[in-house]
């Protein structure tokens, strides 16, 4: 009995030891969760946010920059042994506020940092920085927000805001984290990859009080943050501002392009908004206001507003017909007011006169000659062949498809095709008499203002264009994206463009443009357009380039509900040309006229 008790005690000791060893084996060897927990105890990931690239105008003037913003953030997990009284004194908040904010942070996440106090001033920052060590779990995060030197160009620049939940879900590359900023429209969106740079990550070792104890594994896993690339835009900020000034109080757009390069000098959309409204603290509040505005300031009209081309389209008809060889410059067609009406300009015209006088029956005939060339004896079949051919020519002018500008949401316009009419007539047969209204730019045709500007550039270049773009240099490369260095030729030979140039020069010299678009020392070539918009007043349209020889600038102007193209649009276009070429206007009365804005009388 006594002896067995001796063994019982020894057995108890050995059993306890074995239980310990089994338990230790399970937590040390079998279960890896403790090792991970140990790492997450000591390793703190510090994300270094790169500087977002700056944006300059074509002359090196700064347009968009970054402003630092300091937030006090808290990680509730790490908040321990805090002297609340001292904390509240330091940050000048009440105990109740402190508790409330901490509760809110805990609700958001126990381990993720959340903002405790927003946007500390530089003065506050200097005052509190040294005391932060006493408050484990609290830290200062510096982030930057966008700032703008001029209250202009907002629709082209776009804006930056926190990445949305949907964007996070669509981010298959898994780059973005909640709370990251991302370009949401305009250049900021299109060049997001170049502008954002690359986040850096540092792994720091910290002790239980959050005191830094150096780099984890000597920084082997750290990555440096790479700042975003600066962009040099093609925009002339002075011209841009002038354009916005002219379009103030009106609805419409101005596009100015340097034809020899496709660089966009000005991209005005009216009405617009101040880009500084969509940055920093008031973002959400202002965004709600702007997006609900009935004047649609977020609607980027140069790219998104679709109009019928109007009589500007007659130049394209003429060029296509010349290329097809169905007319020449001396082709005379009487104006019989049928099947289309015309205004009274004379009994008939040759080509240049028909363009400057905008004769409707003339171009009805021109298009008929292009489309019905008698290739097939079947009229229906012949029209199909002819329209297909016509379509190919017209599309080579960059119409009917997005041009590929470096901005999102570009609309494509519409160039009706054979398939289009088949659909429209539900596969019943159709022929030229069903479609002829497209001959004069009415009917199904749709264009966007940037396409019209590009067309003016094609005429200015006598037959080719570069895709219009807003950024001429990414970083220090001095180069735009490769697609913007490629010449695009139309299907019309260069020689035919002289007639178009001649006609456009004549429009300004002695035609509809002579009263408001003619300049003293600069030979401007232009074409008015009046887009019917019944029952509201017509849209006023004008495209132009100058000077006639070696053109430096092309302009397309759309002013909605402002009547004839010769008034509002022609005035604005010529003022833009003056501003760009000589720096000021020599016709203050025209400037005054535009700013007054009374175009219909």
């Amino acid at each position, binding site marked *: 009995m*006594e002896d067995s*008790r*001796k063994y019982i*005690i*020894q057995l*108890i*000791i*050995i059993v*306890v*030891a074995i*239980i*310990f*060893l089994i*338990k*230790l*084996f399970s*937590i*040390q*060897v079998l*279960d890896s*969760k*403790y*090792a991970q*927990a*140990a*790492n997450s*105890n*000591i390793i703190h990931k510090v994300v270094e946010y790169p500087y977002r690239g700056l944006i300059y105008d074509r002359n090196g003037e700064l347009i968009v920059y970054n402003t630092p913003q300091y937030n006090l953030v808290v990680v509730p*997990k790490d908040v*321990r042994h805090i002297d609340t009284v001292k904390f509240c004194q330091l940050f000048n908040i009440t105990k109740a506020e402190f508790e409330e904010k901490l509760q809110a942070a805990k609700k958001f996440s126990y381990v993720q940092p959340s903002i405790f106090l927003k946007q500390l001033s530089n003065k506050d920052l200097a005052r509190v920085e040294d005391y932060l060590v006493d408050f484990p779990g609290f830290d200062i995060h510096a982030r930057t927000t966008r700032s703008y030197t001029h209250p202009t160009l907002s629709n082209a620049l776009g804006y930056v805001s926190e990445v949305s939940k949907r964007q996070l879900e669509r981010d298959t590359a898994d780059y973005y984290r909640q709370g990251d900023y991302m370009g949401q429209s305009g250049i900021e969106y299109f060049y997001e990859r170049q502008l954002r740079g690359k986040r850096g990550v540092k792994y720091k*070792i*910290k*002790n*239980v*009080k959050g005191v830094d*104890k150096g780099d984890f594994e000597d920084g082997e896993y750290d990555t440096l943050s790479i700042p975003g690339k600066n962009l040099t835009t093609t925009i002339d900020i002075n011209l841009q501002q002038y354009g916005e000034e002219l379009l103030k109080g009106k609805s419409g757009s101005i596009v100015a392009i340097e034809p020899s390069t496709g660089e966009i000098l000005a991209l005005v959309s009216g009405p617009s908004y101040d880009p500084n409204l969509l940055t920093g603290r008031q973002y959400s509040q202002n965004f709600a206001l702007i997006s609900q505005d009935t004047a649609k300031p977020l609607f980027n009209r140069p790219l998104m507003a679709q109009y019928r081309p109007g009589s500007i389209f007659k130049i394209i008809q003429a060029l296509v017909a010349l290329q097809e060889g169905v007319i020449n410059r001396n082709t005379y067609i009487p104006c019989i007011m049928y099947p289309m009406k015309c205004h009274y300009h004379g009994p008939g015209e040759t080509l240049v006169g028909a363009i400057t006088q905008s004769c409707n029956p003339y171009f009805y005939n021109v298009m008929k000659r292009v489309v019905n060339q008698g290739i097939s004896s079947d009229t229906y079949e012949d029209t199909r062949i002819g329209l297909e051919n016509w379509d190919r020519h017209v599309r080579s002018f960059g119409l009917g498809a997005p041009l590929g500008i470096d901005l999102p949401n570009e609309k494509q316009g519409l160039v009706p095709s054979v398939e289009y009419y088949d659909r429209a007539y539900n596969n019943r047969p159709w022929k030229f008499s069903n479609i002829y209204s497209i001959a004069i730019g009415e009917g199904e045709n749709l264009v966007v203002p940037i396409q019209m500007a590009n067309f003016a550039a094609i005429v200015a270049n006598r037959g080719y264009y570069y895709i219009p773009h807003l950024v001429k240099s990414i970083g220090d490369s001095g180069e735009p994206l490769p697609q913007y260095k490629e010449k695009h030729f139309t299907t019309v030979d260069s020689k035919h463009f002289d007639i178009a140039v001649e006609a456009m020069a004549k429009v300004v010299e002695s035609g509809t443009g002579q009263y408001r678009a003619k300049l003293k020392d600069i030979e401007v070539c232009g074409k008015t357009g009046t887009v019917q918009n019944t029952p509201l007043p017509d849209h006023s349209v004008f495209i132009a380039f100058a000077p006639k020889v070696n053109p430096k600038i092309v302009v397309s102007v759309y002013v909605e509900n402002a009547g004839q193209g010769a008034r509002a649009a022609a005035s604005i276009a010529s003022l833009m040309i003056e501003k760009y070429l000589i720096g000021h206007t020599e016709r203050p009365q025209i400037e005054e006229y535009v700013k007054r804005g009374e175009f219909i009388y």
Partner: protein
Amino acid sequence: MSRRDDISSNIDWLTVFLFFAIAIMGWMNIFAAVYDEASHQSIFDLSLNSGKQLLFIGTSIILIIVIMVVDFKFYDTFGYFIYGGIILILVFVLVFGREVAGSKSWFELGFIRFQPSEFAKFATSMAVAKYISSMGFRMDRLSKQLVLFAIIGTPAILIILQGDTGTAMVYSVFILVFFREGMSPTLLILGTAAAIIFILTLLVPNHLYLYIGIVAIGAIVVAFIKKKTVAKIAFVLAGVLIIAGVIRSVDYVISDILKPHQQNRIKALINPDADPLGYGWNVTQSKIAIGSGGFSGKGFLKGTQTKFDFVPEQSTDFIFCTIGEEHGWLGSLVIIFLFVTLLLRIIYIAERQKWRFARVYGYCVACIIFFHFAVNIGMTIGLFPVIGIPLPLFSYGGSSLWGFAILIFVLLKLDSHRMQVLVH
């Protein structure tokens, strides 16, 4: 001089070796626990816990020499005086002591500070051994048992009054000694059963299952009784009712008798993840530190959890975390092996004593060390509530080290004279 008087040849060198092996390992781990890479400290630096611990080990050698020189009959003769003296000191501490971390168990003499409760274990062992070995002692007498419980109860109650419940709980281990000396195992079994029921009650949220289980067990026991007398059935019934009462009272004990910090320690044992930053902090961090060590550990001075202060009390009560983290499962195995060897060796020594005083005393030493060993390591790996008692010879602390040195070397002194006792 006969060979018998030559202490060096009669002393149990294996125990001496184990004592120093554990103490030296403890010293190195104390250094690892306080080590800070940046400040290039030396393990001998007297401003560090490791330097002080070396000093304590050094002074314990003086203590050991004194023990060896003193006549072995001194302890038997003066056992009650030593016991009485320590009780007086405990009362004295209660009145004049210094409060450290909520416990009034420290005593200050000039620049020396010590904890009398660490020495009370030795004194109580002396008194228990002397009483059991006294003429006419019979374990089966209730009156004798009551005296024994008074001997261990008095210091325990005084220590509880000091606010150091953990150290007081050590005295419960004497029941194991009484068991070895012939006491009926009923108390031991009842105590263990009560503890199991207590824990079960906490782990099973719905007490109804427990009641059903208890009644079922009672019914089975009744079914197996061959001669069903009224008395036997009543006995089982009473047992069932008592256990049900214990279950019923657990909530009351937990929420009304235990102090808040004691309640939390029990809650932390059951579910440390419920509040990992609050009451579960110590256990959670301790398990993280040990668990992150893996099979062979992170290497000496390479531990991150202990070094960066995630584990509290790391050089005293939670010193085992350093072993677990820096030396992994293998290191833990070595330490546990050393302790088990030491415990079995002490029991072996106790068993070879012909003198009952020495044998009982030997068992006291083994059981006290065992209790510390089991509870301390058990709490660091989450098998036991957090009770602030050190790992013997290993944890930082002079009083603790000296207390265990006295316990062990007095036994070795007695052991070295075991042949003389025969003559005696």
